[in-house]
């Protein structure tokens, strides 16, 4: 599904990614761990198509050259990034945002846009699964939401848009144990043979709930070690020092 070959990324002439290779197949859960500044969020941003990065190398998504697609086209084709810091958008109602987003994606896929009634049915179902109070949805997007509420809102968007590849950028940061469990349950219930996850995290904590197939250690912009779920446990004990 995703094939990254020798990816380099620079921002303001500073090298952040230095020849990263990664292959993700449908149904797989990959975790990327690594110390601060190793390039985890840059990888997420580059995959989402954020401006400001100078890149080299190749990223193929279902055979298509990702660098030729705009951010919105990537989203429409099923790439979803749960932001580390979801943005607050004053004056934009959360429900209106969710509906615009879903209908933009549906339209691009050649599906019929949903009317208010059908849309609300979906939102109600998905938000109750995540324990999100409906009142939140009539508020301005992320404005005044707590850290945990913002992260839950990201997972809600994921469940509504039904992406093929979900990238979770430190979704566990700022979450208490209960919220972490809800978020993890949200991810687990969405996992299936067709879709894949790339989970970016500092800690083993989230991986206790979402079991990865592969764990990669990222250091200085490269994957320096790949292992199975046991690698996370080891990292938790020994730290990153052995790998960098």
């Amino acid at each position, binding site marked *: 599904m995703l094939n990254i070959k020798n990816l380099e990324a620079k921002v303001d002439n500073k090298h952040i990614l230095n020849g990263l290779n990664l292959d993700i197949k449908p149904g797989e859960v990959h975790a990327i761990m690594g110390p601060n500044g190793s390039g985890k969020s840059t990888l997420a941003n580059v995959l989402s198509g954020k401006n400001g990065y100078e890149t080299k190398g190749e990223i193929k998504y279902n055979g298509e050259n990702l660098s030729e697609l705009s*951010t919105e086209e990537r989203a429409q084709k099923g790439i979803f990034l749960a932001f580390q810091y979801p*943005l607050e958008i*004053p*004056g*934009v109602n959360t429900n209106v*945002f969710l509906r615009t*987003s*879903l209908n933009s*994606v549906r339209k691009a896929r050649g599906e019929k846009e949903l009317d208010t009634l059908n849309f609300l049915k979906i939102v109600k179902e998905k938000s109750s699964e995540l324990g999100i109070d409906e009142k939140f949805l009539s508020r301005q997007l992320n404005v005044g939401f707590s850290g945990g509420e913002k992260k839950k809102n990201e997972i809600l968007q994921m469940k509504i848009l039904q992406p093929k590849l979900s990238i979770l950028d430190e979704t566990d940061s700022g979450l208490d144990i209960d919220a972490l469990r809800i978020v993890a349950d949200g991810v687990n219930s969405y996992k299936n043979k067709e879709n894949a996850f790339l989970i970016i995290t500092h800690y083993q904590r989230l991986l206790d709930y979402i079991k990865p197939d592969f764990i990669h250690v990222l250091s200085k912009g490269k994957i320096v070690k790949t292992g199975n779920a046991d690698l996370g446990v080891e990292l938790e004990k020994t730290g990153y020092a052995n790998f960098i």
Partner: protein
Amino acid sequence: MKNFYDFKVDNIIGLSSKEKEFRNKELDLFDKNGFPNKREEAWKFTDLNTILSKNFTNITNDYISLKEKKFELIKEFDHNYLFVLDGKLVSNEFKFEDKNKVSIKEYDYEKQTFVRNQNSLNLLNNALASGGYSLEISKNYKFRKPLVVYNHFSESIKEQIISYKNSLILNENSEIKILNYTDTNSKNNFFVNSFDCFKLKKDSSLKNIFINKNRCNCYFHNYQKSDLEHNTTLDNYILSTGLKFNKMDIEINLNEEHAKSSVFSALSLSSDEHQEIKSSLNHNSKNCQSYQKIKNVLNDQSRGVYQGKIFVKQEAQKTDAYQLSKALLLNDNAEFDAKPELEIYADDVKCSHGSTSGSIDLDSIHYLKSRGIPEKKAYQMLINGFLSEILEKLPEDNLKKFLIEKLGR
């Protein structure tokens, strides 16, 4: 240099000799000043004289309006209406109201109100105004439905100035919502110089909304003078957009205790539009409140100006006055100028002011795009979000819905 205008009091039909004399004096005063330029404080950011001289060859005041004109009523909400053609009251209908409680007449220039101040356009209005209306609402009468004033301008007006005065008296404990709906799609250049005088008697309330139906190539200047008695409320909502030039000069006198007034503005400007709001909120008595919130979105080479003044007289203790302007600039060639003015003589008051301008947040655009929303739509969502704070304050659901749709939001 040859003037680009030629105004004559004699072009106005049916004036008494006394009136002629008054008007000629006003015209002489105007001629001494000419059209305003940046030397005048009220026009600090705009040289109207130069703007007009570049866009007109010879402005005259001899337009004769046709009497009949078909016009299209707004269907989206129930309303009463006045139909005003080229500044002249042509017809009216108050089918939702008790007709005994409403008085509507042509404006009476024998009893006119006039303003002589730094703004020479007021002198010009005093000299040349004809037409206009006087509306009076009886004591304790509250309008059931809004009143729409259809301000239509004929397509045959070209290189002309149209001047008129309107008056509105709200007697004790009366209430009305007015939508000033300018309707012209003329491609011609002409100038509209109007004067509105509002008197709000004790406990009355007026909500006054400005919007236009089409884009047009004309120049508008409106001076509004309002006098507020005890416990009255006046709210102005300025939503006009698509006008080549528009200046609203608003003077609100809070003359008695507990009078309240707001000026709200949500403007989305593009191409070479120029819109100005100049306000003077005069706190002449204690315990009055004023609130001004101006939001501008500026694209292309458009220009927005806000000069907001709060004046607090010595006896106006416990004044609560607030003003804030925010501009969102979408293009490097767009410009927004703001100048808050506070003149305070009382010592126990709460007055605040602020002004910000900035460009659109690209991280927010990225966030929306990452959810599959096309870039253009993402921009529109952020712009609407920026203006929504004002639009949410509009009164009456059906009217509000109509206005928001009209603005394309």
